[in-house]
């Protein structure tokens, strides 16, 4: 029984650590924009390394179009690392843009934003992770939050936009 208890709360470990980190960054930086930037940068660095583990374990092959990529992100990647499966909606007519809807975002368990941090994008790390990971498979994307339960929205929505295929095989240097 002890072991089960310990396992259950191990998923809280990441959430707690992330929360403590954001708190610290808010102390270190003068404004929320800088915190957002820093979170995105850290996420990017995680993404470029996480993709290796993902490809090794998930066994997914090459994606033929952006729709397939969206499926893999939502159904395999999110499931594997965060234990949730966001739904995919709001495709743009050109098929180069879609939204991930997170019913619940494990990063924000136990979180409440104070009033003076209204422009803080708390979970911005996720955007960086997605951007970094996709860049490693030659895909440049724009990722941003458009809805956030922390800001009173009903759901959390991440908007992803395909920018271009990266042709040269040289990975961009880590920031």
């Amino acid at each position: 029984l002890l072991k089960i208890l310990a396992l259950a709360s191990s998923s809280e470990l990441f959430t707690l650590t992330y929360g403590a980190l954001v708190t610290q960054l808010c102390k270190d930086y003068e404004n929320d924009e800088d915190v957002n930037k820093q979170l995105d940068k850290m996420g990017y660095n995680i993404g470029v390394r996480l993709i290796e583990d993902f490809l090794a374990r998930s066994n997914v092959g090459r994606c033929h179009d952006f729709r397939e990529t969206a499926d893999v992100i939502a159904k395999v990647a999110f499931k594997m690392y965060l234990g949730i499966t966001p739904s995919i909606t709001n495709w743009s007519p050109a098929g180069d843009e879609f939204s991930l809807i997170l019913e619940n975002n494990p990063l924000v368990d136990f979180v409440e934003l104070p009033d003076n941090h209204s422009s803080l994008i708390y979970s911005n790390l996720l955007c960086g992770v997605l951007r970094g990971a996709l860049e490693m498979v030659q895909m440049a994307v724009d990722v941003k939050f458009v809805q956030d339960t922390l800001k009173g929205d009903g759901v959390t929505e991440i908007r992803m936009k395909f920018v271009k295929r990266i042709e040269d095989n040289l990975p961009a240097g880590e920031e």
Partner: protein
Amino acid sequence: MDDSLLFQMLHMEMAHALCAEQEKGLGALEGVGFRVGQGLSERLTKETPSFKDELDVLKFLCKDLWITVFKKQVDNLRTNHQGTYMLQDNNFLLLSQLSNGKQYLEEAPKFLAFTCGLVKGALSNLGFDSTVTAEVPVMPSRFPPMPYRI
């Protein structure tokens, strides 16, 4: 679902980011650990009856807390019976990604500060003030933090 890897990567990024920005990075990192330690010990002890004595608390630290964070128990617990304890982990998760050898020995404090804070935070939440230090005698991954009880 595997969040241990995610945690390890986050920890590594944290160590780099916080220590690169400022002189007091190690302290900041320890502070982050402290808050996590407090939160975790609160959650982990929710279902357990209160501890009888110091040794009980240390056992909780070596087993429950260590398994939750580092996926294994502490390998060795020693005490001088005067309030000093030494926990030894022979395969410490957060250092296991670093290469062997002396080369990275001076980098090690960056990767230990979080854990020192974690232990301190957990102990403080259970009513003990402590100082915790860590040393890495040999790479890879000996981890003897020493909480002194005051």
